[in-house]
């Protein structure tokens, strides 16, 4: 089948089986390797992308499920200017091996879009499914608070 959707602001068409997870279409057909494969079963969050602004696990989302919808990957998040989350991430020196970080950043950006000033409990709820084997959690927490402040400052100016 043919699946058409909007990817990082541009219309794309993919031929192939509709049950194939979006993750592999992104990585193998479109060359967008910033979205990572970690577990394949919705257990780690490394493959997180936005579908219509909501954080979803692309390893468990059939391609057919994004037909006509808007998908944003890490490559599209800060394509023109780095997203506040990405800036905050750098300021907190967050990544270690980096493998989970695309997914962390996508989850954090979706959280901040829904809740511009999350408290620690809200961060825990939104981010608990994004595993980091390198243990960057303390910095992720600080970076989300920092990004919230950056976004608030942007909104005020």
């Amino acid at each position: 089948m043919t699946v058409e959707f909007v990817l990082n602001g541009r219309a794309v068409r993919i031929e192939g089986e509709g049950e194939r997870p979006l993750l592999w279409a992104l990585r193998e057909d479109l060359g967008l390797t910033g979205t990572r494969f970690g577990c394949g079963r919705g257990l780690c969050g490394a493959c997180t992308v936005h579908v219509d602004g909501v954080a979803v696990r692309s390893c468990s989302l059939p391609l057919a499920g994004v037909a006509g919808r808007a998908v944003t990957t890490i490559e599209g998040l800060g394509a023109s200017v780095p997203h506040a989350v990405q800036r905050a991430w750098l300021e907190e020196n967050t990544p270690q091996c980096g493998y989970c970080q695309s997914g962390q950043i996508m989850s954090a950006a979706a959280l901040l879009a829904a809740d511009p000033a999350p408290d620690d409990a809200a961060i825990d709820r939104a981010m608990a499914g994004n595993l980091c084997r390198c243990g960057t959690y303390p910095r992720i927490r600080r970076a989300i608070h920092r990004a919230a402040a950056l976004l608030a400052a942007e909104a005020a100016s």
Partner: protein
Amino acid sequence: MSGLDRRSFLRNVSVAGAGVMLAITLGGCGRTAPPPWPNRREGVLQPNAFLQLLPDGSVVFTIAKTEMGQGVMTGLATLVAEELGIDPRALKCEFAEPHPDYVDPEYHSMVTGGSNSLRINFDTLRTAGAALREMLRAAAAREWQAPLADCIAGDGEVRLRDGSRRAGWGELAATAATLEVPHGLPLKPREDWRLIGHHDARVDAPSKVDGSARFGIDVAVPGMLTAVMVRCPQFGGRLRRCDPERTLAVAGVRRVLEFETAVAVVADGYWQASRGAGVLGVEWDAGPLDGVDSAAITAAQRERLHDEGRVVREEGEAPDPQRIARTLNVEYRVPYLAHAAMEPLAAVAVVGDGRAEVWAGNQGPDILQALIARRLDIPRAAVRVHSLPAGGAFGRRTYMEFVLEAVDIAAAMAAPVKLIWSREDDMRHDRYRPAALAAMRADFGADGALLAWEARIVCPSVVSGMVPLIAPLLLPDAIPAAIADPFEVLAARWDPMNTEGASGIPYRLPRVRIESLLYDPDVPVGVWRSVGNSQNAFFSESFVDEVAHALGEDPLQFRLGRLGSEAPERRVLELVAEKSRWGQAPAGVFQGVAVLACFQTTVAEVVEVELVAGVPRVRRVVCAVDCGTVVNPDVVRMQLESAVVFALSAALYGEITIRDGAVEQGNFDDYPLLGIDECPAIESHFVASEASPTGIGEPGVPPLAPALANAVFAATGRRVRELPIMRAFSTGNPT
């Protein structure tokens, strides 16, 4: 890379490094015609194996260690940049292909491990940076006919002291290339350091927040197919029969290849390959572990205690049995643990025409090169190894069988192949941190005094598994690798990793006896972040706590009272006590402490727990470290945070169990990792030091489990002698 077809990859093997040699090797004296540096570009000034000055004035830094999250790129780049006087982020960092000039002098290979990267490169890389800087200054002095002392280098240019002249490094390269590479240069004195001890920003961070970082699993070459493997679940089992019919009917599946212990499914993509694998008809012949489970392994370990092992340390007289009024005799136990790096193992291989080229995150490119050469029976020079940043490793990528599998499949397919391990493969076919058991014993006199301390540790040899890896590299091609077998046997008789973390117990004790009892149930084991220290510190530092309580002493005071005034453990314990406000925790918060010196670094940790519905929850971990000169303070903090979270996952939940000779766990649902919602506050404090830098990737791991178990005892009165801790607190167990 992506613009090249397969042919040109292979052609490049033969022309690599054929450019005109402008310079001599850094350590080249006395060597005849060293092979050209493999990463060398053409038309550059290359004073040594590590640095190339490009015509545009930028500097390429070739890194001979694996970046696997530990921040080694940043650390090593800081050393070079300090002498060059530039921002480390301005260096173009790339990973070294195998070459003698990149060999680690301690490991005789390019292995990354043992937390030694900063320590062994501290002088080498500063010297490399100084050499390039001095050549540029000398070139400016010659061009300007000015005194050398007036030519100042930094920020990508050389300028004359009075400001009258300046030139970019690119402009000076041609003149510099005519000069000899200087030797015996003085390095910048400590008081002039601008970066070492100050620079924090990781050089690899930008690519890891915009998604552009490329790992082994991301490599693509034209015409590439994707493979997955269906492996015999039982260790040592073999393929009996395979029926590929249904697999071959899956759209996108190209071929099914049978190997001795696995079947490869090769397809157009990962999903097609794994779908094909899911319907493969396959039967296995049972291996030697048929019917074996974790309980049987534990029973056999316990049985081993009846034997006499190897005494690795014995000091003081054995107490007269008459004097012993009381004995504390307890068993400690830890399970197998998986590495579970976040990037599943993956490798790309192109094989043909007597050559091979591979791409993978790996912890030893020259070892890998030698292994591939042997596998294909081709010269090492015909094998190109491209190393990529690893999405975590923790020791796992020291074992590079996944790359050999990719090579085998690519050879059979006569096409470029990417092999991707599933998470389940990774969990079930790891080289595990060994399950180990310790009999700990302390004798006390009638007056209550401690008379003797004994640890008897049952564990398989980890070192013996390293021998087959390293042998092909160190032995000349002509000698069969089988010659290494005797070394393997030797290692299996005594492996210092078996008792490391317990044998060096630093306290003054009237009698110490440490015994190593090797026992190998043939479950594959390997190096896992901090190796033997990870379990032995748990045994030893938990038992210290038990003995302190038996004597009615405060666990911190017990330790301090038995450490010499100069002991490194004393300095970190005093610091951690001060920073954690030891003994002054708020109501409902309970503290535990532990300390260990390993990889020439000493770390003490205080863990604070509180009880939530009777179950311990870690709220804060305070670390104090002595790792010599701190090169990048924030990277050291990151490594301590990382070690704490890694060790906390293991201590609370980590457990790989064996059932019928196979691993039971398969993914993050049954091998859970700590999430952000359980992550405690983590603080790091440094002991001021002017010594050379020492390891930081591993030493934060070992003290966590005992400090946690000691805190749990303080909170609940329960002594946890078996990991993971949450087992003791799961439903059904009284708390």
